[in-house]
Every structure is written in C-alpha cells, then in structure tokens.
C-alpha cells in the first residue's frame, strides 16, 4: 500500500497560487512603471479624511430620514504629478503584491523540500521558522510602507496640514499575518522537537 504524499493537495494549490501571485506581481510592476512614466494623472485612495470633510455628512439622496453618511475614504487624482509623486505612486500597492508572491514562494519551497527530505527534519523546521518570521514581519511592514506612501501623497495633494502620524489612520494591520506568523513560529518549534524524536527513533537499534 502506498502512503502517498501527505503534503498534497496543498503543494499543488500553493504552486498554482505562487504562479498567479508571481505573474500578478510582475504585471503589476510593469503597469505601475508604465503609469508612472506615461500617465498624466496619479490617483490614490486615502482613509485619512481630515479638515473640512471629517465632520460633514455627505448630502446624497436615497437615504431614509434620520440616516446620514460620512466618507471614510477619499480618492484623490493629481494631474501632471511631479517626479517624486510618480515614484511614491509606484510604491502604493507594489510592496503588498511582492509580499504575497514571496509568501507563496517561501511556502512552496518549504513544501517541496519537505516532500524531498521528509517532514520531520531540522531543515523543514528551519524553513518553517523563516516562513513564520517573514509572514510576521513582511506583511505588516508592506502595509505600513504603503500607508506612509499614501500619507506622503496626501500631504502633497492638499493645502491643509496633514501630520505624518496620520498614516496610522490609513494603516490596517494585517492581523491574519500576525496570527499566522506566530502560529508558524510555534509550529516550527514543534517540528524541531519532532525532528529530534525522528533522529532518536532512527538511532534506536
């Protein structure tokens, strides 16, 4: 009786996701570069809604009595952006795409090497720990960079004062990455123990 590969179908799904995210990242970079060079308008969305917009309900039809709506996000478009703004615009989105592609690459490498070398090995534990740290740090860092970039773009787009600390209102921490990263780090410790147990078993006569 063949046991089969215990890491399937996960490896297949991750390989497909890696292909999709890698292509999306490359296409995204190409499009961003094209837009940065060729487009005459730079648009970005900011959740930093300050100044005159913050307290004003938006007068729109279709609301029942007693209901009001407020903008939580605004889309800004600058015509003929400066070179600096074009560079900033490039970094609004690209870091997250890169992190997604890199995450699937690391996960795929982890699964393929685990298939070849065995699941309960020190190497698998090390790669799982690297994957955990990357997930824990890279995803929040990428979203943080993008929030900074959007705040900088906003400061250059409006006439009123916008503090750099406003980036915190535009930053949504990717809690999934924090929880997953911490989980992977714990799992890596468990894998390290199981690798030691495997070595013990293999050295038992």
């Amino acid at each position, binding site marked *: 009786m063949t046991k089969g590969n215990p890491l399937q179908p996960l490896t297949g799904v991750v390989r497909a996701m890696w292909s999709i995210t890698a292509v999306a990242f490359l296409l995204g970079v190409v499009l961003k570069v094209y837009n940065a060079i060729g487009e005459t308008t730079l648009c970005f969305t900011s959740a930093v809604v300050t100044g005159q917009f913050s307290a004003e309900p938006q007068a729109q039809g279709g609301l029942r009595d007693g209901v009001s709506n407020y903008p939580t996000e605004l889309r800004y478009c600058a015509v003929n952006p400066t070179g600096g703004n074009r560079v900033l615009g490039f970094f609004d989105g690209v870091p997250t795409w890169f992190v997604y592609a890199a995450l699937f690459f690391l996960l795929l490498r982890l699964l393929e090497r685990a298939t070849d070398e065995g699941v309960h090995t020190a190497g698998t534990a090390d790669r799982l720990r690297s994957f955990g740290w990357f997930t824990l740090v890279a995803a929040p860092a990428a979203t943080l960079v993008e929030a900074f970039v959007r705040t900088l773009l906003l400061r250059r787009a409006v006439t009123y004062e916008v503090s750099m600390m406003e980036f915190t209102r535009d930053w949504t921490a990717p809690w999934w990455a924090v929880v997953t990263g911490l989980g992977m780090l714990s799992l890596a410790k468990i894998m390290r123990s199981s690798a030691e147990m495997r070595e013990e078993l293999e*050295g*038992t006569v």
Partner: protein
Amino acid sequence: MTIQVHLDRLLAERGMTLTELSERVGVTVVNLSVLKNGRARAIRFSTLTALCEVLDCQPGDLLSYRQG
C-alpha cells in the same frame, strides 16, 4: 560518548561474525553496525535481550559507562 559498546570484543571472543549474529538475533547488519560503531542513540530491551541470549552474556558485558 559515555556509554561504550563492546560488541566487537564479544564477537571476537566467541569467533562470530556480524552477519552470523545478525541472522541469529534478527536485527539487520546495518543496525548492528550502528550499535557496534557507537552511533546508536538508544537500544531496545528486546534487542538487548536477544544479544545477551545469543552471545551468552550480561548487559554489563555488552555495555559500560565511561566518565567524560
């Protein structure tokens, strides 16, 4: 390594080869080599019992503890 395995000496004293011991004990030559060369991390009671039976010895004849 503080636990010494004296399989070599016992085999020589009894004029027995590792292959012959392997057949009589029911443990592979590879595993017996691992034990003989001091690379084993643990030994089962069943293996120890079989070795003592075939070699007609006590566990203390097969294993000894050396400080350091």
